[in-house]
Structure formats: C-alpha cells, structure tokens
C-alpha cells in the first residue's frame, strides 16, 4: 500500500513536471513564431524602406521648392496690391519665372499627392499584414485580400527579379487567422523571389498565384519558374531548422512554421511539387468550414 502511494506520488510529480515542460515548449514555440514573423518582415524591410524613402525624397524636396515658389508669388502679389506700374511688375515676373512656376505648381502638387498615396498604401498594407489577432483565433477573412496585401509588400523587393501574376477565384471568406496565413504566403513568395534572384539570370522570373475552391476546400497555388528544389531534399523542407542558406542568414524555420500554421492550426494541407531547373509549386488547401471546432 505504502509503495503504491509512493508510486502514485511520483507519477503525479512526473505528470506535473511534464505539464510544466509542455507549457514551456508551447511558450518557446510562440516565441519562435513571433520571431519568425519579425524575420519575415525583416526580409522585406530593405525593400519597404526603399519604397518609402523614394516618395519621401521627392515630396520633401518638392515641398522646399514649393516654399520658394510661394515666396515669389507673394512678392508679385504684393507689387499688384501696392499699385506698382504694370511694366515693372511684368519685368519682375519674368525675372522670377512666374509663368513657369504657375505651370509647374499643379504638377508639383499632383506629384506630392501621389507620393503621399504611395506611402499610405505601403503603411496600410503593413498594418493589414500584421493585423493583431490572437494566434488560433479564427475570424472570417478573404484569402485573396490577404494575398493582395502581401503582394504589395513583396513587390518592392520582387519587382527587380520577377513578375507576379494572379488568378484569383471567387473563394469567399473562410474562418482563419489571416495574419498567420499572410505570413505563410509571404514566406513562400519571398523564397521564390530569392531563388530566382540567386539564379542571376538576365531576365525576370515569373511567379503565379492562383486561388480556387471546391465544396470543402479553398486552394492556393504559388508557382515559380525558379531553380526548383532537388528531389533528395523535398521531404525535408518542412522540417524545423532545415535550411539551404548559409549559416546566419536564415532561421530555417520559415517553411516548418508555414506547415504548422496551415496543417496544425488551420486543419489544412501544404504540398510541394518541384523539378530541378523547371520551378516549384506550393499548393495549400484550407477547409472552408471548421467542423472540428463546431463539434
């Protein structure tokens, strides 16, 4: 009897410590997920900084120019108001190139407005991409919309190396954690861009993103015409810490986290089809209805 109680005691203790370990592992996993999200944003940040600093550059330069324009217009206006002889005003207007300024001022303002719109688009998409949503919390969202926001962010980086075309089906909304799925799309598309970039071929590559659905599933296929993934490592790419990048440049977590988000968290599936030299296609399927959660 005593022995039995002692055994139960030790089992309880072990159980407790196991619980603690599971909790600890879950926490670590959450941290990894967050850091991977930061890493994937980091991959984009150079492109985004470029895309923001260009419009900031010309908008701020134009604003300084505009200040000079306004000073000159004020000077002429003052001359008119004080009733100086018209021919003197004309002469001064010529000196100050008022005709040119009046012509340029509209154009300048239009360009500034477009510059600000460009910045706004990027900031909005960054917000959309990283929308605050608890991990595991499912909210109806439009996958096409999510991919669109990812593509706008990716474009800054990709446009020098690949054209991206989309073929969006009418797939409606599905219950999901859209910010996590966006991370999946971002990772796969950025991998494609990087693979094409590293090929260093003289022409741009092509990436296609296609969505469609059947009764039960929504499908997303992301295909590139890059170098392809060698047969012998295809079954390893979803393993944690598997990476082909030199040490220090990648966490090796990208695709394993994609797998976890799609399969474990959304009850979906992710498949890869690839031939060396011919390109790679990732196909993701996600359930349209989460019966496992309703039951």
């Amino acid at each position, binding site marked *: 009897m005593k022995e039995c109680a002692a055994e139960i005691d030790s089992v309880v203790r072990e159980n407790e410590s196991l619980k603690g370990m599971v909790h600890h592992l879950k926490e670590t996993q959450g941290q990894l997920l967050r850091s991977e999200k930061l890493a994937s944003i980091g991959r984009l940040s*150079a492109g985004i*900084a*470029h*895309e*923001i*600093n*260009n*419009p*900031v*550059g*010309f*908008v*701020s*330069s*134009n604003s*300084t*120019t505009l200040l000079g324009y306004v000073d000159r217009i004020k000077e002429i206006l003052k001359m008119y108001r004080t009733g100086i002889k018209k021919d003197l005003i004309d002469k001064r207007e010529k000196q100050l190139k008022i005709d040119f300024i009046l012509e*340029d001022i509209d*154009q*300048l303002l239009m*360009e500034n407005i*477009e*510059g600000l719109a460009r910045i706004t688009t990027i900031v909005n998409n960054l917000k959309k991409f990283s929308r605050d949503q608890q991990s595991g919390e499912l909210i109806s969202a439009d996958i096409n919309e999510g991919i669109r926001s990812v593509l706008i962010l990716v474009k800054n980086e990709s*446009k*020098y190396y690949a054209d991206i075309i989309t073929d969006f089906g009418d797939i409606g909304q599905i219950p999901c954690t859209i910010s996590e799925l966006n991370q999946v799309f971002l990772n796969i598309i950025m991998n494609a861009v990087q693979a094409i970039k590293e090929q260093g071929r*003289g022409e*741009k590559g092509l990436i296609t993103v296609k969505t469609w659905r059947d009764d039960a599933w929504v499908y997303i296929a992301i295909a590139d015409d890059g170098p392809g993934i060698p047969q012998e490592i295809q079954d390893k790419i979803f393993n944690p810490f598997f990476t082909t990048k030199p040490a220090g440049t990648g966490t090796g977590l990208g695709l394993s986290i994609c797998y976890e988000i799609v399969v474990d968290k959304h009850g979906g599936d992710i498949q890869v089809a690839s031939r060396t030299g011919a390109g790679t296609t990732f196909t993701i399927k996600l359930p349209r209805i989460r019966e496992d959660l309703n039951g």
Partner: protein
Amino acid sequence: MAESILFVDDDRMVLNALERTFFETAYRTFFALNAHDALTLLASEKIDMVVSDIRMWPMSGYDLLKEVRARYPTVIRLVLSAYGDRRMMVKVICEGVAKIYILKPWDNRQFIGQIDHLFTMYRSLSDVQSSGIISAEKHLPVLPELYVRLVRMIEEERSLKEMAAMIETDPSCTVNVLKLVNSAFYGLSVGSVHQALVYLGVDCIKDIVLVSELFKGAGGLPANDARVLLNRHMIVSSTLLHGLHQRLLAERIREEYSATGLLADIGRLILLDLQPDLYRSMLERYVKEPVRSLTELEMNALGYSHEQLGALVLDWWSLPAYLIEACLYHHAVPSAGSTLPREVIALIHIADGYAWRIAEGVATVAIAPEAAGLFPISEKDLDDHVASIMSRADCINR
C-alpha cells in the same frame, strides 16, 4: 561652359524633383530613367558628373557606375539612394565606385552645396594636374598591394576573420596596424587584428592598412630621421584628433572618419618618396627655424603643396570624397558643402598644429582662427585639453 550633371533614377518623380532642385543653378542637367539611357547620354553629351540611384532594373546603379568608371574615368560619380543598406554603402565607397553616398530624402540646399563643393575641389585639383608639375602616370605611387587585396575581400563580403588572417600574413603590416590603432586612436587598446576589425570596422581598418603600408616608404627605403619624424607627427595628430573630438564634440569620431587624422598628411609621406633630399632638408629647416608655414615652403620650392599632392593621389586611387577633403582642406577649412563635417576638418587642422608644437617643438605654428572659432573654447582651455590628452597617450614615447 557650366558643368553638366546626369541624374539617373527609375522613379520619374524623383527626377522631376531633382530637376526642380537644380532649376535655378548654373549646371546643365540631364535625366535618365535607366542605365541604358544614361550610357546613351554619356556617349553623346559632355557629362561631368553622374548621380545615380542604386536599385534599378535591369542594370543596377552599382553596375552603371562601375561601367562609367571604366569608360569615363574622369566623370565624378555620386550615389543618391533610398536604399540604406550598410553593406552596399561600404561596398560602393570602399571600391571607389562613387565619391559620395547620399541617402534619400535629401535636403535641396545641402545637396546643391555638396555638388558645388565637389566641383570646386576638382577644379583646384585639375589646376595642379594640368600644370604638369605632377604627372600621375610617371611619379605617383600605386596603391599598396595588401590594401588592394583587402578591398577585394570587402567586395567579396568575406568575414572579418578571413580579413584578419590575410593581414596577418604580412607581419610588418600587422605590427604597424596594431601600433597605429593603439597609439593613434586615443583611448583604444586592441591585441589582435581581428579585434581591431571588430572595434573599428573594415571601413577604418582598410585606411589604416593603407597608412601603415605607406609608412614603410617606397621601395623599402631604410627609415631615416625625416620619415621617423613624419610618422610620429601623423600619429600624434591622429591621437589629438580623436581626443579633441571626444572632448569638444562630446562623442567619439565616426568610424569612417577615424583614420582621417592619419591620412591628412599623406601628401608629405609621398613627397618624401618623390623628393627625398629636398623634402628632408625642407622639414629640417621647418623644425629648426620655423618662420613660415611648411605649405608655403613647399609652394615656393615645388609649385604645389602636400595637401594638393595627397588629395590628388587619393583621388587617383578612387578613394572617397571625405578622405580627399581631409588632405586638401586641413590647412584651409572650407565654408560649406564638404562631405567631411567642417568640425572634423577644423579639428584635423588644430590637431596638426598642436602636434608640431608639442611633439616637434615648433613653437610658432599658427592655428587658423576660422578653425578654432568653430569651438566655443579659450586658447588656454584648448592647451589644457591637448596637454591632458597627450599625458594619457603614449604615442610620443614609441
């Protein structure tokens, strides 16, 4: 005829803004949306300067500027980029692909000022060159091989460890690098080349390698008194620059500028190689009977100064604008537009003056009021700072 500038950027609106920025200046301006158009313009127009973006398709600005350097070596090259990647900046400057790397957004007036300044600088250099007194092809030293190898490693993005190992294959250079870092960089103490690279960065170490190779003298000439004097003078100047920067500007000198105190007088080292007897006697005269400035002595005897010679050689080696400025202006601080901040140029001048006074006993060296005037400090306080820096540094004793 006014100088002409070609701007290259794949963003039409950036070009429009630049066109407005330079509208009222005397420069003739040209604009291209890609590298191909830029090269076409370069072939048909007389272009003096190219200002290019980095990220462009299909040919990047980096490749364009390299091409420009190969085809039109006299065209001044600048980068104006929204892409602030530090690796790219170091690469562009280290390889001499561009003289200055400017980040967007830019300030209109400051940008024009920088370009005005650059053209002024080149005009004064080309005066010396076209006078035929110095002919680059005939007399000037070539870049030390170790330095060229180091720059190639930076280009190839090799690790600091590999770079340290490469430098260490040359024992005399290793000794010199460590000596320079520990004696000329006030307050720093490193035990290995790798440590020096970590502390100071490749940007700075490559300049130190350059100086240490030049310290050796042309063709392995034996060290003489004049060379020892000059080496010591450069080290003391550099120590004072670092110390004064920390005290008067309340921060460490920026990494990429930290070898400017050493490099500013590089023209003197080269002069000593070009005209050993003449320059040695000039130095002796200067130290013994210091009545005039050394620059004046040089101008009278040679027709050019060590400032001009140093700047010319650094430009010939495709080194960045801030190093050329350190050479050219450390006896005449420019009013505005330089890439190297005026305060730093002024401090190089002050440090150089004090180094003559303290280490060589040339009591009559004058500090230019426009340099000292940049700092709200009395002459007495400046003397005290210098004395306290020197008492802590051990650079005189070696």
